[in-house]
């Protein structure tokens, strides 16, 4: 009798209280995260709507309306403008309105080369002056250390005072 009643009580061992709130306000179901998938969809949407579609339309319209240029010999006595050296209409637009021309970039680089050469020559002269000073050791320049006389006097006095304090040991 006692065993049977003990066995009947076994179903009451693992008993926990469960709160559902009556189901009011909806139910949260336990499920895996969809955050990465949602983020991927966001990125895809962004790059297509703001990137691929506008730029694709720009490229398509440029090629349909304007079209690529055709290679031709340069007419006699004519100097082509910078944007007439390129084939695609979009590149031509960039070169015409935004980019610096080849000649401009080249000549400004020549100016840079000249300036750097001047700096290099000045530095070479500077180094030669130092070399001569080191060689002859006769110039008040890099290899002479200047000391103010006041500091010399101070250090001499402090040395004398220390000797007087401790005495002179032969």
């Amino acid at each position: 009798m006692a065993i049977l009643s003990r066995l009947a009580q076994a179903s009451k061992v693992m008993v926990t209280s469960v709160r559902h709130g009556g189901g009011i306000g909806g139910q949260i179901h336990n499920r895996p995260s969809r955050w990465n998938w949602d983020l991927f969809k966001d990125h895809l949407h962004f790059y297509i709507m703001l990137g691929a579609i506008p730029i694709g339309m720009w490229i398509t319209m440029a090629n349909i309306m304007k079209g690529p240029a055709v290679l031709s010999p340069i007419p006699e006595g004519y100097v082509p403008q910078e944007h007439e050296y390129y084939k695609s209409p979009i590149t031509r637009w960039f070169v015409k309105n935004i980019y610096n021309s080849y000649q401009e970039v080249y000549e400004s680089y020549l100016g840079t080369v000249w300036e750097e050469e001047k700096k290099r020559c000045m530095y070479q002269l500077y180094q030669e002056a130092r070399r001569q000073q080191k060689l002859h050791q006769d110039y008040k320049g890099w290899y002479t250390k200047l000391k103010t006389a006041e500091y010399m006097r101070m250090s001499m006095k402090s040395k004398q005072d220390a000797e007087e304090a401790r005495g002179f040991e032969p």
Partner: protein
Amino acid sequence: MAASDKDEFPVYTNHPVFGGIATLGYNIFAAPAIWFNKKLEAIRGEPQAFYHRRYPRVPTIDECYRDDVVCRFEANQQFMRDKLVEGQMIDILRQRFNECVFYEKGSGMSAYVPLHEGAPVDVSPGSTHQCRAVLEAFEKANENFFIKYGELGKFPTAEQCYLKQKHRLMWERRHGPVGTGMKTDEPAASQE
């Protein structure tokens, strides 16, 4: 390409055996593209022109002072451009020779020669075939290119090339033309 001169003559469509297949391929792949291109040309009107850039000649490296770095830089740039142009010229001459051989060799199994045995056409040194002249022009140009630019490395400079020429002229002054051997350092034969 094939239909740019005539609308109704794509290549090989009048072949007795494969004409039908060629026409089918043309109709599937080429004809829609050509139709679309014609529609675009109607929309666009006259196409614009683009040109290849022409570089003005500047003084070469032998006309520059040693300290004039701007002159030397420009001479170097011109040298690099000239090397590319002359390399392309060699390419064109080589293609001309290959096309000449291909055109002259004939067809069928008799025209098949393995690569290591040479060209299917007689271009040995004494032959009078027209491809022999083309081959000689190519080989001469190749030899001159090697004399000028050879063995200077991947990024040669104009100074290196100029000095290579100077060293070659000095060597030729001492030893005779290139290819005739070097003279040894013997003292004078007889001194009396």
